[in-house]
């Protein structure tokens, strides 16, 4: 066994090496962080992706491979939550309630007012992902929040969790299939299946389709997490 003094010395030496490497990497910063990618996106992004919102264009076209795994991470997280909570799939009717601290009437009244607006705003964000800020993930999260508010309003709301999980998996497969369609039309995988030559009005079809699929998938995934979470510890 090493003595505590030599252990601390080794720790200090290791930290010195790490900081030395960090400082050495700063020298090349100018060559690492140049504006080449940004300039390329600004020059070609609007024509090649057909999206008015450049962020959506990058997410669903240039970086579609990353976006697929981002959606996959949510799928894994849902599986993890279900495995940890381990409730029976046949079990219905999550008995969600605030036992000691009842939900205030004011909160319920406001929730009834906010619920339709929030759901409509989520759908608006999903459908206008290619025009305005936002997209599938943001809109899906908003729609899922609206569904979560529904549990606060209606205490006896029933949810068949198995059906939601199945729909989410099918939607994820559909996202991958739509992403792979470009393999047949343009012979490169994970990009828009409509060529830029066809015009922006046809490229938008792909963007809206993928935004809607990702939005629904995220909404169903978060809905599953809520339901599994609220059933737990009854």
């Amino acid at each position, binding site marked *: 066994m090493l003595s505590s003094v030599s252990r601390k010395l080794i720790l200090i030496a290791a930290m010195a090496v790490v900081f030395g490497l960090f400082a050495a990497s700063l020298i090349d910063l100018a060559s690492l962080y140049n504006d080449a990618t940004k300039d390329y996106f600004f020059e070609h992004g609007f024509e090649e992706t057909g999206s008015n919102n450049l962020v959506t264009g990058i997410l669903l076209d240039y970086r579609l491979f990353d976006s697929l795994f981002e959606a996959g991470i949510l799928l894994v997280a849902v599986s993890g939550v279900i495995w940890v909570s381990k409730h029976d799939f046949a079990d219905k009717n999550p008995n969600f309630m*605030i036992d*000691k*601290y009842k939900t205030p009437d004011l909160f319920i009244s406001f929730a009834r007012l906010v619920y339709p607006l929030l759901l409509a705003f989520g759908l608006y*964000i999903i459908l206008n992902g290619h025009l305005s*800020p936002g997209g599938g993930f943001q809109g899906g*999260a908003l729609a899922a*929040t609206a569904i*979560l508010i529904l549990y606060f309003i209606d205490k006896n709301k029933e949810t068949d969790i198995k059906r939601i999980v199945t729909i989410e998996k099918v939607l994820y497969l559909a996202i991958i299939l739509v992403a792979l369609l470009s393999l047949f039309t343009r012979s490169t995988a994970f990009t828009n299946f409509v060529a830029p030559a066809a015009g922006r009005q046809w490229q938008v079809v792909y963007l809206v389709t993928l935004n809607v699929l990702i939005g629904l998938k995220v909404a169903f995934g978060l809905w599953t997490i809520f339901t599994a979470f*609220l059933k737990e510890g009854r």
Partner: protein
Amino acid sequence: MMTDILNMLLLLFLIVCAISVARIRDLLGAVIIFASYSLVMAIVWQQLEAPDIAITEAAIGAGVTSLLFIATISKTRREE
């Protein structure tokens, strides 16, 4: 100039929120402070010209996490 002062105030508010959320004993109060932290953070993202992140922060940070934390408190205890 005015936006600089606004940004400074927002960042100051973030620091105060971050310290008080760790110090407060009432968990429901901590959740409410955390939600206001997320809301101000969304405004800061908007000031940094990242509206996409701002929408995500408002929906996830102020919406989903607060409601899940409130559900957790209702199933356990309110005091730390």
